[in-house]
Every structure is written in structure tokens, then in C-alpha cells.
């Protein structure tokens, strides 16, 4: 947990919407939770309350903004216990498939063009749920090698892995609590 916060706080780097590196990276983690899928999905889809279960998050601020077409878009600002914020956009929340999709607009993680999805599925056993958390992103450094320390693929993968590995057991603990 401390390691996650340190990792996140370590690399306060700006994100831009311009070119990204050539190779997208992936982190995918799965956990089985002994709780009903509807209960788990209710926690996962609650975009404005990540602090309820993620131990690195101190608070979540939810906002709605109009996009260029005049449609409402949902954003959240995560304030981290270790310092710094992450600003994220909700990309989709599908009750039928129990899937939440979001992207990072800006923030302290050493990643670029980050988008992720969390999916809840029934099983493997009766009354159990399987949560899959998958992110696709690029390293911060966009040019040819040599790649500066902290802006390489490994730094990006480690930071995202830290977030997922701290979050999923905590989600499980909350969902399984009586």
C-alpha cells in the first residue's frame, strides 16, 4: 500500500493529448469475490465513490460537463492519500454487461493515453463474482531510445499494477463484509 502511494507520488508528470509512443502496454488483473454479482457491480459502477474501496484514494469529486456536441460527460477527480490527483472521464457504464469504462485525462500516474475497463461476471461458484480490471496505456516518453528513467514502459506498468493490486483485494473485502 505504502509502495503504491510512493510510486504514484514519485512521478508527477503532465499528460498531453498529442502523440503517444508506439507500443501500447497492458495490465490485467482478476479477483474472485464471494458476493453476489449485483452487489459487486453496484460498488464497481459507483464512479463518484472510489474512496469507498480503493485504499490509495482519499476522496472522489464527481462532475458533469458538456462536451463539444452539448452532451453531458461525467468526470471524477481522485485525490490520493499520498498526494496528487488523477482526473478521469467516464466512458461507459453498462448494466447489462456489468462493465465500466473510463480514461485518464490528466494526473500523477506515469502513463499516457490510459483507458481502462472493469467487468463483473457471475461465477465461478454460485453466489460468486469475478472482477476483471484491464488497462491499456502508453509510457510517458514518446521519442526514440534512450528513454529517461521513470518514463519507460516498466515504470508505467509498475504504477498501474500497483493501483490494481492494492484495489482489488480491498474491493473484495468490502463486498464480502457482512
Amino acid at each position, binding site marked *: 500500500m505504502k509502495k503504491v502511494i510512493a510510486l504514484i507520488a514519485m512521478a508527477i508528470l503532465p499528460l498531453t493529448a498529442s502523440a503517444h509512443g508506439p507500443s501500447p502496454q497492458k495490465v490485467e488483473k482478476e479477483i474472485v469475490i464471494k458476493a453476489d454479482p449485483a452487489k459487486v457491480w453496484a460498488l464497481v459502477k459507483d464512479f463518484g465513490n472510489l474512496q469507498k474501496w480503493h485504499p490509495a484514494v482519499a476522496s472522489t469529486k464527481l462532475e458533469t460537463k458538456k462536451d463539444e456536441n452539448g452532451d453531458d460527460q461525467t468526470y471524477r477527480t481522485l485525490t490520493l492519500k499520498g498526494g496528487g490527483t488523477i482526473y478521469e472521464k467516464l466512458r461507459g457504464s453498462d448494466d447489462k454487461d456489468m462493465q465500466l469504462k473510463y480514461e485518464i485525462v490528466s494526473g500523477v500516474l506515469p502513463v499516457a493515453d490510459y483507458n481502462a475497463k472493469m467487468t463483473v461476471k457471475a461465477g465461478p461458484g454460485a453466489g460468486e463474482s469475478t472482477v476483471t480490471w*484491464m488497462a491499456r496505456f502508453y509510457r510517458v516518453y514518446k521519442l526514440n531510445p534512450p528513454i529517461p528513467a521513470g518514463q519507460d514502459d516498466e515504470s508505467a506498468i509498475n504504477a498501474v499494477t500497483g493501483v490494481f493490486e492494492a484495489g482489488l483485494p480491498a474491493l473484495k473485502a468490502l463486498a464480502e463484509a457482512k
Partner: protein
Amino acid sequence: MKPSVPNIVLITLAILMTGLATSCWSGNAYITNQGDNTVSVIDTNTNKVINTVKVGLAPVGVALSATNHRAYISNVDGQSISVIDTIKNELINTYPIKGTPVGLLLSTDNKTLYVADWTDDVIYQLDAITMEIQSQFQNGKAPAGMVMSPDGKKLYIANRDSNDVSIFDTDTKQISQRISVGKHPFGLSINKNGSELYVVNVISNTVSVVNTGTLEIQTIRVGEHPYCITPSKDERLLFVTNTQDDSVSIINLANKQSIAKVKVGEVPEGISLDDLTGNIYIANWGSNQVTVIDSQSLKIIAQIKTGDKSRAFGKFVL
């Protein structure tokens, strides 16, 4: 002794049958697996992986030549091009190249390999046999997908960060024109007679259909974060991978309307037509597999396990 007429017929038949056998043999898809630095070779008759070839670091782009019996693979993190013998399906060699090679294209005469450098905005022209750089030219920003007109006179290049497509004249060796399209064009395709160019705009979630004569553009909305495109064999339909909703959009080319969306694997990237069967092959980066769609029924007919993070950017079915 002169051969009798029946003998000539027999010989002609034998030659024809050899030709047929050769073309059947060449039904392979070459899938780059970014995560384990390999290429999965799929036999498109059986839809089974028949070989896995070790290439350079983080392979992405594919260009194929039946004439040269070669598959060219761009290794973006390895800063190299691997060449595979498509008869033996074995590695011939891996050649270092400067920069960030992503998009690859073989000229229609099979003599030149074009390599798009994503970072330095350069297009390299290599001898497709010796792999030596013959010339290079500066291009728009972050060049990605490339296609060539059937007469070999025009090379089209999608410039992701310039939001346009360059037209490179292969006679004058100059960029003759740049066409504005949607935001972040990536994958390209062209129809058989070269009258229509298809451009996938990643950030706009659209496809631009460019009339290559008048340069008029029609824009079609597709799914989230689309990447690559191919027409069907009969050129009635277009198939587009939508990386962020795990689907393929199908467009009716007659009225330029999106008619269906088929769920495929996770994060579909590369898409290619098998000219032999008419089936559509899709490389799924997120789920490490290839999905095969029957372009008549629009149904999935096979899911093939490949390697880690399959990309297959370019025309990858021979």
C-alpha cells in the same frame, strides 16, 4: 518427336494444377504478437496456427509478398525489420533500422518496402530483397498506415498527428498533395481499382471514404477508437475494428451506412481480408487471439489463440 495435341493438353493441365496447388498453400495469416516478440502463422484453410516465428522486440506492422515469398515485420521497440520466408515459415533475418518502424507496405511491383517511422516522420524506401535503404523522404507527423494505388503511381500515407493523408507520387518522388481527414488517421485501405481510399480516424470515431479522383470525402460514424479497415472481397462492405468497444463495425458501401456491429475479442486492432475465402481476420490485442468472420453471414466462424498482444497492422493475409 512433336508432342501430340493430347500431350500438350495434359502438360497445360499439369501446369495449371501446380499453380492451383501453390495458391492453396499460400493461404496464411501472419499475426504479430507484441508481447512475446513472435509472429503466429495461421493456415487460413484450417484456421490453425501452423508455426510461431521469433522476431524482434514488439512486432506490429506486416507487409506480404507472394512474389518474393516473404513476410516483412516491423519491430517497433527492437528498431528492426524481420523477414520471414513464407514457404518454410521461418525467419530469414532481422535487419536493424533507425527510429520507430510501425507501418509497412510493399510496392505493387514487389521491389520496394516502404517503412513509416512513427517518431521521426520519415518514410524509408528499402530494396525488398537486400533490405538496404535506397532513399527516404520527410512526411507529415506520426505516419502510420500506407496503401498504394493499383498502378503503383501513388502511395497514400495516414499521418496520425497531422490529421491528413499524404499522396506521394512514385514517379516524381514528391508528396503531391495532402488531404485533410478526421482526427488521428491510422489504418488505411483501398479498393481494387483504386477509386476509393478508406481512412480510419481514431479520435473522431469515423471512417473517411475518399474519392481518389475528385478527392471528395464522405464521413461514416463507427464505434469507439477505431483502428483498421478492409473492404470485403466483393467490395460491397467495409469492416472496421473498434478498439474500445471490442467490436467490428460493418458498413454498406452502396449507401455508406453502418449496418451492423459484431462483438469480437478484446481490443481488436489489425483486420485483413483473405482473398481466397473472402473471410475477414481480426487480431485482438486484448485477448491474444484472432477472430474470423464469414463476410456473407457476418457470423464468427473461428477464434484462434495466438500470442501475447496480437496487433497485425497492415495487410496480413497472403
